């Protein structure tokens, strides 16, 4: 029972971390290695707005999500657009931006135990014989509804359909009058907002520390690789796979192995089936 409950919670939080990365890669083919940095920066912006400026909590969250979205779009517009299509430069450039943000935050004094966000709701609930606090339940519900919302968004709105068209065939999308650079910028913004949503949902469970930026990056890469790069539905299912696997190893072997599971999942997936569980890239013969 414990495994079931905490496995689900862990899986949803992994899915939240991975969704933004999967979305950006799926649409604009940019592996956004600054994902972890965007996640952390959203946490700190919320903290500053909430504690230093004294805004109401939900307003602070909405504002910091906007800030994050704009940051993601700026990052695409001024940096990544110039290296688009050059895989390795994309990785190096975005990773370097992530490093600048994370280490800059660390240099700016954002470290230690003082940075925490309050939970949405205090108290806990018993599911079977396992105590679960309300925040984790809210997180799970929001996470799942977010995935459903994303699915509806990409299938039934004009912008969503345009993004999907970009993901499927960029040249054809260009011919049909979709501005691919604008859409890619939008996708990057959405990715950053999703990273922010993940941050505001997950960070109240613990302290905001810079190190978790790297952790989030690895986790989101793991989820996306196992699910198949570019398929965010795959990423969602992969999150459950890795999430349960992690909880099972923590319960039966030890908490040291939590990270090992994720990294091993990346390496094994790339070796055995590089397209991932749900990868639907027909031209993978060329890519891999």
């Amino acid at each position, binding site marked *: 029972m414990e495994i079931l409950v905490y496995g689900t919670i862990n899986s949803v939080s992994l899915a939240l971390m991975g969704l933004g990365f999967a979305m950006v890669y799926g649409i604009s083919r940019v592996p956004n290695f600054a994902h972890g940095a965007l996640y952390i920066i959203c946490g700190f912006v919320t903290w500053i707005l909430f504690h230093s400026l004294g805004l109401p909590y939900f307003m602070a969250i909405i504002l910091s999500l906007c800030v994050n979205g704009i940051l993601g779009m700026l990052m695409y517009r001024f940096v990544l657009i110039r290296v688009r299509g050059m895989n390795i*430069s994309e990785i190096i450039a975005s990773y370097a931006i992530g*490093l*600048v943000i994370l280490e800059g935050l660390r240099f700016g004094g954002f470290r230690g135990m003082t940075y925490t966000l309050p939970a949405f709701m205090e108290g806990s609930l018993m599911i079977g014989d396992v105590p679960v606090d309300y925040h984790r339940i809210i997180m799970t519900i929001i996470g799942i509804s977010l995935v459903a919302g994303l699915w509806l968004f990409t299938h039934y709105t004009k912008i969503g359909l345009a993004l999907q068209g970009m993901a499927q065939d960029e040249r054809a999308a260009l011919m049909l009058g979709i501005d691919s650079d604008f859409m890619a910028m939008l996708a990057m913004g959405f990715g950053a907002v999703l990273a922010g949503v993940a941050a505001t949902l997950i960070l109240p469970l613990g302290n905001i520390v810079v190190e978790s930026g790297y952790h989030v990056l690895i986790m989101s*890469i793991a989820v996306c690789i196992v699910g198949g790069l570019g398929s965010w539905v795959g990423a969602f299912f992969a999150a459950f796979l890795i999430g349960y696997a992690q909880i099972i190893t923590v319960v039966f072997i030890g908490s*040291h192995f939590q*990270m090992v599971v994720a990294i091993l999942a*990346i390496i094994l997936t790339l070796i055995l089936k590089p397209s991932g569980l749900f990868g639907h890239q027909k031209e993978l013969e060329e*890519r*891999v």
Partner: protein
Amino acid sequence: MSTQELRKERIDRGIKVRSDGLYALMSLRELSYLTLPRFILIAGMISLPFLMPGMYWQRVISIVCIYAVLALSFDFLSHYVGLVSLGGAFFIGTGGYVAGILNTYYGVPPVLTVPLAAAIGGIFCTLMLLPCLPLKGVYFAIVTLMYPLFMARIIEAFDIFGGTDGIVGIDSFSSAFVEQYFVVCMVLIFLFGLRRFVTTDRGLIFTAIMDNDQAVKASGINITKYKALAVFIASSMGCMAGACLTHIYMWSGISQFALDFSILPIAATVIGGAGTLVGPILGCLILVPVSELLRDFGTLRIVFYASILVGFILFRSDGIMVFIQRKYEQFERWTKI
């Protein structure tokens, strides 16, 4: 006449064209044109330890050389074989641990541990990367980025080889002189060796694999074998650098798998000039001392070299070395269109 009717053209200098062929042997001037850059590099590298004011900066030179070897191996692997490996730390860490284990557990002296670490570590890294060799581009980059993290977590989780404390009490080189000249010679030998190697038949096959691996396959050449050979060369270079690092610090630990060793050589390669082999060394000579100067500011140095990296990727993606080479070999002039 407005500037729009003008364009800049670049023409090879006469002396460059003359010294391309056998005619270079005809006069001292052509000969010196050819040998001067190489002479400056070799003499500069050899005299560096003398020029440094004191122990601390001499130690920095050793570290520069270690990063330079790592950057060389990155440059070779990514621009001559087409395998972009973001896992420099994997090579450094493996080499460091092999040297540390050999030295402390089996009492092998540093003279032997360094070549042994290069061989054993190279074989280990090649075997570990062997299943990933069919991967290309982003996929290979991600998988190699994960390996050092994986090794660090494994060592931490199983608590082997000293766990989080690392292996302590490793012998150092017999003197500072030996240490510096060993690493300086290592850089020079690897540099000129690789420059020679990439023009041999095997080097040609490597470049062909980078350009079009299907065509190489169709010519009846086993590409996995050649990729494995390239990875072995690069990883044993990295492992040798790692072994030297271990002996310099008399310690090997998990932080040798840290991302620093993966990202700094890449930054140096991009800044120095990718695909020139000399460029990475130049980049290390610039980046490492500057980052040492910034050591007082803590993590600011990572911010510093990461922002330089972004700047160079965006605005000067060909690097310093290519720029210098162009100035040395060509002249520019404005002509009418």
